């Protein structure tokens, strides 16, 4: 699956997962922006890079990535939620346009989801 020439923003505060996402996305031919460990960092990266897609971990420590999601929706940039939360139902209700990938995920699952949202 080739994601070239997408620029994919990764928002993930778990270091190991962030590194893995970085590798997966990069291995799929896309350029990685981030990973951002906080919403604040993520919003700054969106300003400075013309990203075309994003992977958002929902919970970031004591905060969440929903401000980032709102920005992405506003900018019509496709993204997926990558979350371990069990309350994904509420999430999909609030964000019908988002694709949710449950943690723990497989690289294939992630890439398929990314491909799906970027193709729309």
């Amino acid at each position, binding site marked *: 699956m080739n994601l070239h020439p997408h620029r994919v923003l990764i928002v993930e505060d778990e270091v190991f997962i962030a590194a893995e996402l970085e590798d997966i996305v990069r291995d799929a031919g896309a350029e990685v922006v981030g990973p951002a*460990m906080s919403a604040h960092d993520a919003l700054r990266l969106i300003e400075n890079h013309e990203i075309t897609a994003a992977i958002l971990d929902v919970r970031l420590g004591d905060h969440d990535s929903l401000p980032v999601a709102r920005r992405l929706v506003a900018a019509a940039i496709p993204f997926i939620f990558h979350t371990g939360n069990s309350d994904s139902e509420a999430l999909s209700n609030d964000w019908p346009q988002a694709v949710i990938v449950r943690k723990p995920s497989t690289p294939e699952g992630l890439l398929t989801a990314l491909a799906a949202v970027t193709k729309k």
Partner: protein
Amino acid sequence: MTANEISKRKQTVAELQSVNNLLNTILTTAPIGICFVDRDLRFVRVNERLAEINGIPAEAHLGRTVSEVLPTLAEILHEVTGRILATGEAVLNHEFSGETPAAPGVTRFWCEHWYPVRDGTGEIMAFGGIVEDITERRLAEEALRASEERVHQVIDSMFTFVGMIAPDGTLTEANHASLAAARLSRSDVIGKPFWDCYWWNYDLAVQKRLRASFDRAVRGEVVRYEETIRVADDQQAVLDFMLKPVFDGERLLFVIPSAEDITWRKQAEAERQLREAERASEGERLTQFFKQAPSFMAMLDGPDHVFQRANDAYLRLVGGRNVVGQPVRELFPDVEGQGFFELLDEVYASGQAFVGRDVPIAFQNDGSGVAEQRFLDFVYQPVVGLDGQVSGIFVDGHDVTEHRRDQAALQERLNEIEALYANTPVGLALFDRDLQFVRVNKALAEINGIPQSDHIGRSIWDILPTLRDALEPRLLEVLQTGEVTEFEVSGEIPGKPGVIKAWSAKYYPLTQPNGAIVGVGAIVDDITERRRAEAAMRASEARFRGTFENAAVGVAHVALDGAWLSVNEKLCSIVGYSRDELLTMTFQDITHPEDLDADLAQQGQVLSGEVSTYAMDKRYVRKDGSEVWIALTVSLQRLETGEPDHFISVIVDISAQKDAEAHREFLMRELAHRAKNQLAVIQGVASQTARSAGSLDEFRELFSNRLQGMVISADLLVAQQWDGTPLEDLVRRHLEPFGTAGGRLVCQGPDVFLGSNATESIGLAFHELATNCVKYGAWSVPTGVVRVRWTLDSDGAQPPELQLDWTERGGPAVTPPTREGFGRRVIERMVAQKLGGTVNSVFDVGGLSWTLRVPPTQFVALPPGGGSRPF
């Protein structure tokens, strides 16, 4: 002696002789008695008149003493002459009475004058006496006086008013009746013009009429008319009044007013006229009276007692039977054998009336055969004809059955009252005005502890001496004012000294119909137990209040409409309102809107009686707007009638419990999340390790080391409840597995407590640094040393940042890695990103130097010497 002298003496003697003759003449012929007595009271001379008075010849007096001649008068004369000798003065007009020898047993009166007869030297040698018999005069005077007195008495005792008026109109006499009628004294009227006196001066017209009448009387006319006068107390009396002049020849001596009180006669006349007017219809009235009289009446004729007449009352009595013309025996077979007919026969025969009282009689008036018992008062009065024979019997009487019944009922009521008086548990007594017991009932006797009979006739103070001070003023007040007094009193009772009791006492006046207070009634109730119960109630109330107020839970009484009736302190503190504020509110006001319906529904079930209590968890909205979870238990207090009265609510603050529940739920979700997250992390660890591992063995070692590093961080956090960890602990625990003993690790820095985020991130960084160090750096050779230093950088911004330095020395020469593997990404980018800090790595020839600057949000600097854990 010269002839002249002789002639002179002769002349003198002649003169003396002449005087003597004159004296003798006087002495003998004077109509008064004259005598001389010497100092021994012997008669020297006595004239005929005196002898006549004394009833003894004149010669019989001479030479004899007064005592001998007049023994009954001797004592008086001795006294008189003794007085003359002592004073030298004459005693004149000495009146005395006595008997004379001439007429023993007849009292006579004399007026005597006694004077001294002196000799040439002035010595008293004899006494001269002049005696006048005044017996007749005196008798005449006394007769006159007696006569006058009789006249006065007669006049005064007359009911008729009589007086005497001088010709000028001055009233000179008024009799007792005239004075008494107007309560006047003589001085009030005597000497005043007649017409100005009290009787008349109430009315000018009367006075004028009287004066005119007097003028006519003065001219000789007897005037008579009816006049109204004023008598005592401003009452009036009608007089038959007459003025009658009395003349002595032509001369008017006086006018006699006389009057007769005809007031009664006038009134009687008026009444008679009235009666006469009424008498015209009396015949008719008598008939009516007979017919309608409330007493029964009948006229029986002849020996068989045949009814001539019977009045309505009689007919009612005998059950409306038609009686006239029938003999009693035929009419009343039902009365046969009760003795009435025999009585009638006897009265008829004897002519003697019979009077019966309360006589029972049985009638069978309704024909039912059941005799009705009645009681009669009656008279059988024989009627005697012109021939003197009994011709019939008049029957007159009353049916006293109802009266007897009333009396019986009255007696019954009296008995009831007596029984009530005797058996009422309230003490009752009656006192006379001297406060002596007249009556006392059992209850009061028991209160006093003295037998009932011992009270009677004794003073209340005999019975209750210790209560005198408290009671006496009250009782006297009742006697004086007639007002009821009511109060409470306590003290000892006579029967049980030392036992203090309390009573309520009410004293009321016993009055006669005319209002006179004849005694005092007492109503006394022993309220000792009531007082004790009240005291116990107050104590219980105080205990309840104490419990209510000090309860560890909120307690409230709530009205049926939800208004707070009373609340305790605890409830106030739970809801954050003051007591005063709450008492103006309802429970609905502070119940969370989402919980109100459920509460009201359950309350309705309690009100309808479906359940007796209910309990629920619900929220109040506190005054500050925050919510507080409470456990509510409500029960309903009903009145004795069963009507709901109010709710009793017990409120327990369960917010802590609710918080704990919420926290537990949160933890459960968190656990699920973290578990999945952790799996994702481990997946990442495995994947990242696999990317760099050259062999499966190497993968296994690196993978398990990394997991080990994560476990160390987790252990540290668990030890501190995930708040964080002291930096030095973090360094030592992570680096220990890499063989730091023997001085190969040097740690230095102030006490710093890292937050949980920094604990994980910096722990990971140390792990990756140490892994590299063992593989390529200082710890890859035996002499290499790692120094970890941290400082609080206080010269920059406040608050200070933490600067952490990792410096390797004594290892092989290092070259920067060509590939950005996981470890390097962590060390050079991700940790700094995650902490919002900065990092700097220098691959120096002497070894790696790594510096991390951590913003103050991620840690807390502890004061030197330690301190409490901050998070």
